[in-house]
């Protein structure tokens, strides 16, 4: 597609439920990022996929968070047993290569845990 696409745009879930957030990167982009944007917290790095390398998961806040990237393209971020503090905007970005490339962002998924 023309840009990074994320779905759903908004998600309201009950505390304790699992959620899946989807990201379709720009075709041909080898790097894919997930970030979390909370009010006053800026952009918190979560996970980074680069080609076929093992993902950098160093930003995942707990073992309730996981992500996968299938076929080097679509990525899914899964949050298990959601908590109220998980409420945030989850942003996906992709870039053409890992070096010297700007990141292109999706519109984000606004997650609200009630």
């Amino acid at each position, binding site marked *: 597609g023309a840009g990074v696409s994320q779905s759903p745009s908004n998600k309201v879930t009950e505390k304790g439920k699992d959620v899946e957030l989807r990201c379709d990167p720009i075709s041909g982009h080898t790097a894919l*990022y997930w970030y979390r944007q909370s009010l006053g917290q800026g*952009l918190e*790095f979560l996970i*980074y996929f*680069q080609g076929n390398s093992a993902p950098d998961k160093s930003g995942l806040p707990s073992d309730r968070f996981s992500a996968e990237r299938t076929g080097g393209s679509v990525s899914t971020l899964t949050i298990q047993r959601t908590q109220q503090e998980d409420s945030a905007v989850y942003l996906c*970005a992709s870039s053409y290569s890992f*070096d010297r490339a700007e*990141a292109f962002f*999706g519109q984000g998924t606004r997650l609200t845990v009630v």
Partner: protein
Amino acid sequence: AQSVSQHNHHVILSEAASLELGCNYSYGGTVNLFWYVQYPGQHLQLLLKYFSGDPLVKGIKGFEAEFIKSKFSFNLRKPSVQWSDTAEYFCAVTGNTGGFKTIFGAGTRLFVKA
């Protein structure tokens, strides 16, 4: 660990005032530096970037930034702001020692009074 620090969380200016937003980073090795902007209701988008060469880089809409290696800084400037510059601004860094993982600062919210 890699990190980016933005000194101002909120800035309020009148139109035609000059702008300077501070950014300092901690990231070993060779770095690439970016400023991204998020206008209200829009995606994050690239404002300007530095990879090498002239440390004074110019971006869109009259913005510029100066890389000062000795100070680990990449401050954003604009001589005369407009109401339409109201947005959130993020400094970001990537580099070879971090596997080219892009790290963002907490962001600076700029409000320009008409």
